[in-house]
C-alpha cells in the first residue's frame, strides 16, 4: 500500500512541477496578454 502511495506522491510532485511551467509561461507573456493596456512594443516609461 505504502509502495503505491509513494509512487503516487512522486507522480503528483512532478505534475505540480508541470503546473509551475505553465505558471512561469504566464509570467513571461507580453504585457497585453496580462491585461495591461499598454501595447507590447511601448517604449520604456510609457
Amino acid at each position, binding site marked *: 500500500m505504502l509502495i503505491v502511495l509513494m*509512487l503516487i506522491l512522486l507522480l503528483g510532485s512532478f505534475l505540480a512541477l508541470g503546473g509551475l511551467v505553465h505558471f512561469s509561461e504566464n*509570467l513571461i507573456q507580453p504585457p497585453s496578454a496580462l491585461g495591461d493596456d499598454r501595447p507590447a512594443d511601448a517604449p520604456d516609461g510609457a
Partner: protein
Amino acid sequence: MTLQSWLQIVVTLLIGALISVPVGRYLAWVVTDRKTFLDRLFDPLDRVIYLAIGHRICSEKMTWKTYTLHMLMTNLVMAAIIYLILVFQDYLPLNPLHFPGMEPLLAFNTAISFITNTDWQAYGGETTLSNFSQMAAITFPMFSSATTGFVAAIAFIRAFSRSGGGTDIGNFYRDFVRFTTRVLMPAAFVLGVLLIQQGEPQTLQTAVVAHPIQGTAQTIVMGPVASMETIKHLGTNGGGFCNANAAHPFENPTPITNLVQTLLMIVLPASIVVCFGEMISDRRQAWILYGVMGALLLIFLPVTLLSEQSGTPALAKVGVEIAATQGQPGGNMEGKEVRFGIAESGLFATVTTAFTTGSVNAMHDSFTPLGAVSPFAGMMLQCIYGGKGVGFLAALVYGIIAVFVAGLMVGRTPEFLGKKIERPEIVLVSLTLLIHPLVILAPTGWSMVMSYGLASIANGWAHGYSEVLYAFASSAANNGSAFAGLNAATRWYELATAFVILMGRYPPIIFMMALAGSVVAKPVTPMTSGTLRTDTWLFAGFWLGVILVVGALTFLPALLLGPVAEFFAMQRQLLF
C-alpha cells in the same frame, strides 16, 4: 599549516583551472554540434538512441516550455524506475547478500535524491543495497542527473547567444545524448580504469570474510566501486558506495585518487564557464564570471583551513600540539583520515560543497565551528562554481540582479549580454533567489520546534541546530553531504528532505528556463555609451559584492545561531 600543505592546495587548484579551459572549449564543440574526435566511435550509438526515442522528437526545435516539459518527463520516468528498483531489489538479480527491498519512504527519498543530483543518503550503501541497485538505481542517475543540470545551463546560454526573434533553445534529447556520450561516458570509463589501477574494487563479488586477531569474523562488502566513484565526482553527484563515502579506503585509497577525485569535482563546473564564453563569443565575459566564482572560493577556503589548523582551546589546554610539524598535522584531526590530514580534508570539504558534489573524505560534523562555515557558504550561495549547470545558473541570477541594481544606481538601461532585463526577468530571478532560502530556513525552523525534528539530533545546543541547518542546506543545494550526527532516517526527515530536494532543484531550473524563453525572443541591443558594461573587472567587483551582501542578508542570522554561536562557546571551552 606547513608550506607543503599550502603547495598541495595551490597545485590542485591550478591544475583544475588549467584543465577547465580545454575541456570548456571541447564542451562548446559538443553542444554546438560540431565534429569531435569521438564522433566515429559514438555516432552509431547515438543513432540507436535517437531511433529508440524517435527521430522526429530528437530533431525538432524546442521552445523553452517544450524543452522543460521533456526534461521533467524524462526525470519523472527515471525517478519512478529508480524507486521501483530500490523497493523490489529483493526480486532482482545480483543480490547474493539477500538485502530486502528498501522501505518505500526511504526509497522515495533516495529516488528523488539521486535523480536530482543531490545524492543525499539516509541509508548506508554497503548494508542496504544490492550490486544491481548500486549500478542501476545509483550509478545510472549519476549520469542522467548531471546531464540534466548541464543541458539546462546550455539551453539558457543558447537563449542569450541567439540574436533574437525566435523561440528555439535547442533540442533536449540531442543535448542530453551528446553530453552523455561525448563527455561523461568516455571520461568516466578512462578515469574508472585509473581508479581500478589505484586499488579501488570493481567486481560483482559482493563480500569477503576476514578473520582479524580479535576472533570475530568481519564481512567486508565489495562491488562495482570504481565505476561509481568516477561519475560520482565527475557528475558532482557525491553519493557513496559505502556509508563513509570518500573517507573509505575502497572509495579513496591513495593520495592520487584523492587528487583525481578533487579535480573531477572541479573540472566540469569550471569548464561550463569557459563553454559559456565560447558559446556567446565573448571570452572576456566568461573570465569575469570565472574570476567572481574563483574569488569566492579563495575567500572561503582559507577560513576552513586556518580554523581546522587552529584546533580548539580545549584541545590546546590538554596539551595537544596545535602547530603542524614534520611528524604530526596538529590542529583539529577529529573526524579526519590521518592519511589526508587537515589540508586535503579542508580542501575536499570546501570543494565538495562549493562545487555541490557532496562526497566527503572527512566528517564535517567534526570540523571546528568556523571550519564548517565554508561548506555552509558553498551550499547557501550555490554559485561558487556550483554543481553541474545549476551553480552556473545561480551565478547568472546574481549577475542579473547586479545588472539591475547597478542600472538603477547609475541610471542606465539594465541589459545583460545585450538583452534587456525587464519585469518578467526580474520576477523570475527573484523567485529563483527566494525559493532557495525559503526551503532551507523554513523546514529548519520547523524541525527545531517540533519533537519529531528534535528527536533526531545527536548533539546539543548550537551544534545540534547546525546539524539540522546543514541537512536542509545540503538538500536545497542538491549537495547531499551530511553533517552526520543527525538521524535522517525518520519519517519527518525523509519526507522533508525529499520535498526540499525537489523544490531546490526543479523550480529554479523551470524559472531559469522561462527566463531563457523570455530573452531568446528579444533582439540584441547594440552597445552604446549608455550601456552598463558587464565585462569589466569593476562590474566583477560589484557582482561579487551583490553575491556576498545578498547571501549575508539571507543566511547570516541562521549562521549566527549555529556555527558562530558555537565558535564563541568554543572560546570558553564549551564543546558540543
